[in-house]
């Protein structure tokens, strides 16, 4: 493997660019877009709207030409690393290929130009698509009902806990606590607080699963729900899952499944069959919606019979015409026990189109194959790493076979080589790879979490393993190479602490 530069003496080409914002490119009088000419009486604005409700000075938006805007954002784009350029084994994020067909069908005027307040009778194609997507997600999750409304995983979690609250309220029960494993994503406890509950942590056993004794002790009548990811954030499938759901159900709690890791088990196992009541599905993970640098996503939820009455409105309903005509679809708002709305209109429909196109492309068998390949790829990468220096310096946190992702601990590297997980991640950038997720889950010291997904080839996985091997060899020779990395990226390590002490969060804000 060819080593990338390990010195900052010769700045990389992008490092020599002067960083200028679109506001700093502004020059008075320049413009890109033009507004249509006024074709109605040109009445003074103050005649239409009282002057004191009007703005005195125009907002200081940039004054730039179209070519300047194009160049500016094209240059910015080249300062990003992206999935279409190279491997992105970011654990827990499922960075799988984003098929371009999905972009094309989402842009069809019948989708992209469809107004959300259109009479549903004249948006039948959109409602049918939503209904079909709901049915497909229900089949994949093994649960009978769904709502597509939540806009991301965290929004689905909030929906889930508000459903939980409505369910218990309806039964006249006051429950105050939500159980989550100590390996959980940060969104889980943050959601618990937003939904008005108190977080109770459940310990992890030596196999990386839930500690059953601890769960039994904590599954009291005060527990509203358990939130769980399975396979969990260690990439391990909890073999005791049936017992776990039984314990919580027997205590009267609702079972919430965080679908962040659904990509491991599609067509192989279903959360509903494991005993879960509510599942959120990240369409931007398992179902190929592009991540967009932090959204948009969508977090539909699938639920069991006992949760169904509380689902958000509007619901999509299908009815048979009965006279030989096809079925028709409508929004149903008349759900007296519903928790209500979670957002405007019917959800991130453009994301539904992409996810539906993905499911239609792969089919049931294809989805199962995607999960199988994701698991195969993760295990292969793990095996390759164990056989090399990583086996010594970055051993698995739990010595088991993994599902679609795995977690290594950089504790030995820190101890023996004096390099931290952060240093290894930064050096990977010089090698042309996006690093794995680092320092998560929290219970693993110096954690590195790899999720290669099904879209990497064997050659791609080999190249990643070779890069890590080369980096650890560099660390044996001279750990300083890693500690000062990266060298070749548009900027080098940034001083986040200083940025937080004296935050500058907009142009012209000075020390903010």
């Amino acid at each position, binding site marked *: 493997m060819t080593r990338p530069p390990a010195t900052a003496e010769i700045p990389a080409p992008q490092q020599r660019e002067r960083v200028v914002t679109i506001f700093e490119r502004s020059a008075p009088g320049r*413009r890109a877009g033009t507004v249509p000419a*006024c*074709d109605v*009486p040109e009445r003074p604005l103050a005649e239409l*709207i009282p002057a004191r409700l009007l*703005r005195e000075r*125009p907002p200081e938006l940039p004054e730039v030409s179209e070519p300047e*805007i*194009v160049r500016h954002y094209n240059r*910015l784009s080249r300062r990003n690393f992206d*999935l279409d*350029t190279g491997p992105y084994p970011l654990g827990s*994020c499922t960075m799988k290929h*984003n098929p371009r*067909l999905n*972009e094309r069908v989402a842009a069809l005027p019948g*989708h*992209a*130009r*469809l107004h959300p307040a*259109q009479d549903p009778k004249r*948006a*039948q*194609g959109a409602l*049918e*698509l939503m209904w079909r997507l709901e049915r497909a997600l229900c089949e994949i999750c093994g649960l009978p009902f769904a709502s597509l409304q939540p806009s991301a995983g*965290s929004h689905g979690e909030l929906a889930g806990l508000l459903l939980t*609250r409505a369910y218990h309220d309806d039964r006249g029960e006051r429950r105050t606590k939500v159980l989550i494993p100590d390996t959980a994503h*940060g969104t889980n406890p*943050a959601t618990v607080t*937003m939904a008005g509950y108190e977080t109770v942590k459940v310990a992890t056993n030596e196999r990386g699963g839930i500690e059953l004794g601890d769960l039994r002790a904590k599954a009291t009548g005060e527990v509203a729900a358990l939130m769980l990811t399975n396979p969990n954030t260690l990439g391990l499938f909890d073999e005791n899952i*049936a017992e776990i759901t039984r314990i919580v159900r027997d205590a009267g709690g609702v079972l919430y499944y965080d679908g962040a890791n659904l990509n491991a088990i599609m*067509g192989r196992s279903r959360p509903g069959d494991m005993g879960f009541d509510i599942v959120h599905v990240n369409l931007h993970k398992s179902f190929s919606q592009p*991540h*967009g*640098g*932090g*959204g948009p996503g969508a977090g539909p939820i699938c639920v069991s019979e006992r949760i169904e009455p509380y689902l958000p409105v509007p619901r999509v309903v299908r009815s048979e015409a009965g006279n030989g005509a096809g079925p028709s679809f409508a929004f149903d708002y008349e759900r007296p026990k519903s928790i*209500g*709305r979670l957002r*405007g209109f*019917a*959800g*991130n*429909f*453009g*994301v539904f189109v992409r996810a539906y*196109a993905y*499911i*239609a492309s792969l089919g049931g068998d294809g989805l*199962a194959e995607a999960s199988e390949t994701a*698991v195969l790829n993760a295990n*292969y990468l793990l095996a390759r790493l164990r056989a090399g220096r990583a086996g010594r310096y970055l051993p698995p946190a739990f010595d088991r076979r993994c599902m679609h992702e795995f977690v290594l601990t950089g504790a030995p590297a820190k101890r023996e080589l004096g390099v931290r997980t952060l240093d290894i991640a930064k050096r990977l*950038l010089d090698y042309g790879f996006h690093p794995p997720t680092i320092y998560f889950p929290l219970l693993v010291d110096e954690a590195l979490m790899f999720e290669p997904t099904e879209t990497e080839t064997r050659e791609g996985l080999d190249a990643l393993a070779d890069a890590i091997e080369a980096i650890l060899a560099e660390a044996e020779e001279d750990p300083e190479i890693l500690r000062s990395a990266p060298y070749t990226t548009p*900027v080098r390590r940034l001083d986040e602490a200083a*940025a*937080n002490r004296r*935050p*500058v969060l*907009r142009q012209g804000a000075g020390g903010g």
Partner: protein
Amino acid sequence: MLKAIGAGSLDELFADIPAELRLDRPLDLPDGRPETEVFDHLAALASRNAHADSELCFLGAGMYDHYVPAIVDAITQRSEFLTPYTPYQPEVSQGTLQAMFEFQTAMSELTGLPVANASLYEGPSSVASAAYLAIGATGRRRLVASRGLHPHARETLRTYARGFGAEVVEVGLAGGLTDAAELAAAVDGATAAVFVQNPNFLGAVEDLERLAAAAKEAGALTVAAVDPITLGILRPPGDCGVDIAVGEGQPLGGRLDFGGPSFGFFCAAEEHLRRMPGRIAGEAADADGRRGFVLALQTREQHIRREKATHNICTAQALNALGGIVYLAWLGKRGIVELGELLARRTAYARERLAAIEGVELLHDAPVVREFALRLDAPVAEVLERCAADGIAAGYPLARDYPEHPDGLLVAITERRSREDIDRLAESLRAAVSEAVGVAA
């Protein structure tokens, strides 16, 4: 690969799943199909939707048929923006981070409030997020919402409020505007925040300063949901004593997309910075002193602060917010004023033109910018059906959201609806109302 792993079969890799929990049949979904067939299937579904290219669209109610410049699609479809994750590795995410910083600057300029985040999901849930901040900042749990606030926002606020353990109280409208006296009476020492919208759902331009003063007197925050495209001409909320301005970003270069994805924005007074929800980009220097950008103040967020986080949001709407800043750069400092003026003038023209029709009158005569409400002397659903037959989506019926206005119709104007289009609507509406009245009689 299995050999390298030391496994005999693929099934062996799934051995941790207990046998009784393994799905012993294929998923009951249609078989996978080649790209050409999937395209045809999706195109067939899309063809069954009447959309803003196939008919003349006067629908608004929170999302609007503004022109989306080609440059927005060209930039947001670039792989480098489309396919990366949230910028956790700033050294290779400078494009996304700088775009966030620019977006924050633009939103701050528009709203007149000093701090802005990098996006939330969309409009109504951003209103609920403001309630969460207000409850945390004041320690109070009463939320007072004007009926001028978007019905979806009020419903979302109620949904979230059950989790917050908060109470939502509504204040009515008088003459199309939030009833200031009723508002002042509703706000008390237990009130965390007052929620208003500008222009409000019925299109009326509110006196934000007066409403905010009433809230402030009781020690409550004022949250204004604002339409960003009107802020080229309307007084910015930050100049009116508003503490938090949120809103739906779709008008800024977003597709209609049947309601999403778009973006929500969240701007606030300086003192609320540490309670802000969502990602915020900030300027930073690298090891060699070069200018760069990072995710700032992450200790607010769920991945660090967990149950003490200011919000649970993780994935937001970064790509849509990028579209927003590209749009605002395209429109520019002069364009946003000119567009606001054009909307106000065309809306005034349309309002007069339609109100002159027999059987049609104004639902209120408060000032408007881009949308206005009418009252019809004929069944609204029937009138809309007749206009649809003319290829016109004439407006949004108010009956479901405002039972007090069973005969109400909300009409939205954009720069894409010319005088000629408005005249066409007027003719269609005239005929539809007169026919519907004739049938009813």
